[in-house]
């Protein structure tokens, strides 16, 4: 075996090693991106699902099919705080007023994400439905009829004319703990029945 043959073997070994590293990195990146994109997709679907549920409920705030059962829309909101809200709405359109609450709970321990929390939706006296869709933040701001921000805690919910809903959602599982994040900020969503005063 001559010297040039040795050089050939050494050179091809180095080149082969470099190629192997490149292919392995490519494979790693492809796996990471594939996981992240899957997570992003479910993340945005989760966010849209939460937004749809909340918009449906909040828009009906103060509404009752039989208006005589709820003639005063200023009483639509029973309780309001930065992380929770409780209001009245006839969400199933049966002429009976329902009580709907949204609030957050403790940290979810069953998922790898260390920040996701329980997010509850409660209707009447039914057990609360925990929305485990990777919610990591839920907070609200409230405004009066002039558009001024009401200071917390809200002692007179009847002053609320509009509000702002903020939700942050993260992926529950992530590659290498790089969790994706998405936000939804509904600015001053006005329940139509709150204007009737």
């Amino acid at each position, binding site marked *: 075996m001559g010297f040039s043959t040795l050089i050939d073997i050494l050179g091809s070994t180095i080149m082969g090693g470099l190629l192997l590293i490149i292919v392995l990195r490519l494979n790693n990146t492809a796996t990471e991106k594939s996981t992240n994109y899957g997570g992003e997709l479910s993340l945005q679907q989760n966010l849209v699902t939460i937004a749809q549920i909340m918009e449906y409920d909040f828009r009906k705030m103060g509404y009752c099919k039989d208006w005589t059962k709820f003639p005063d829309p200023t009483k639509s909101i029973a309780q309001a705080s930065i992380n929770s809200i409780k209001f009245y709405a006839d969400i199933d359109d049966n002429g009976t007023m329902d009580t709907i609450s949204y609030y957050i709970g403790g940290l979810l321990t069953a998922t790898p994400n260390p920040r996701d929390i329980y997010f509850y939706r409660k209707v009447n006296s039914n057990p609360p439905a925990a929305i485990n869709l990777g919610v990591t933040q839920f907070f609200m701001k409230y405004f009066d009829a002039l558009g001024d921000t009401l200071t917390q805690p809200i002692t007179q919910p009847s002053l609320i004319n509009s509000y702002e809903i903020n939700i942050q959602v993260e992926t529950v599982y992530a590659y290498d703990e790089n969790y994706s994040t998405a936000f*939804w900020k509904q600015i001053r969503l006005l329940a139509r029945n709150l204007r009737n005063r």
Partner: protein
Amino acid sequence: MNLGQSLFAIGALVLLSLNIMSVNTRILQTDDVALDSKIGVLGTSIGTSTIEDASKLAFDENTKDDGVSKLDQLTQNLGAEVPGVLDDFDDYNGYVQKDTVFTIPFTAVCKVNYINTNAPDVSTNNRTWHKKLTIRISTPFSRDTLEMSTIYSYWYFR
């Protein structure tokens, strides 16, 4: 290593490089789409919020306090009577709203037109009982411009 082997090796390397560049390009393109989609959610929330804000106002400057029964009682020129004061629906004509959500700047440009019910996509210069608000929301962080619209019709309790 003879010349043929060297050429084969170089060819293989070129193919591999092209493949890797192609994969990287697609990854970056998909990143862009994912970011656009996230920004789109925020832009949509700004659009719906603006629509909500506009829909709470009176149909016209002349219907704020009293009802009207004839079309010629409505305002011909749409837009804010007092700059910066939005007290009826058509005041949003020409209104530009700037918002910054999580450090992403958004610009919403609003336009209000009278429309006919038989052709709601076409604006008319004649006064009708229906006005259409169109909002175009853009941000330097996204290639897309979102467009949302709503129709507001005049009604009053007798």
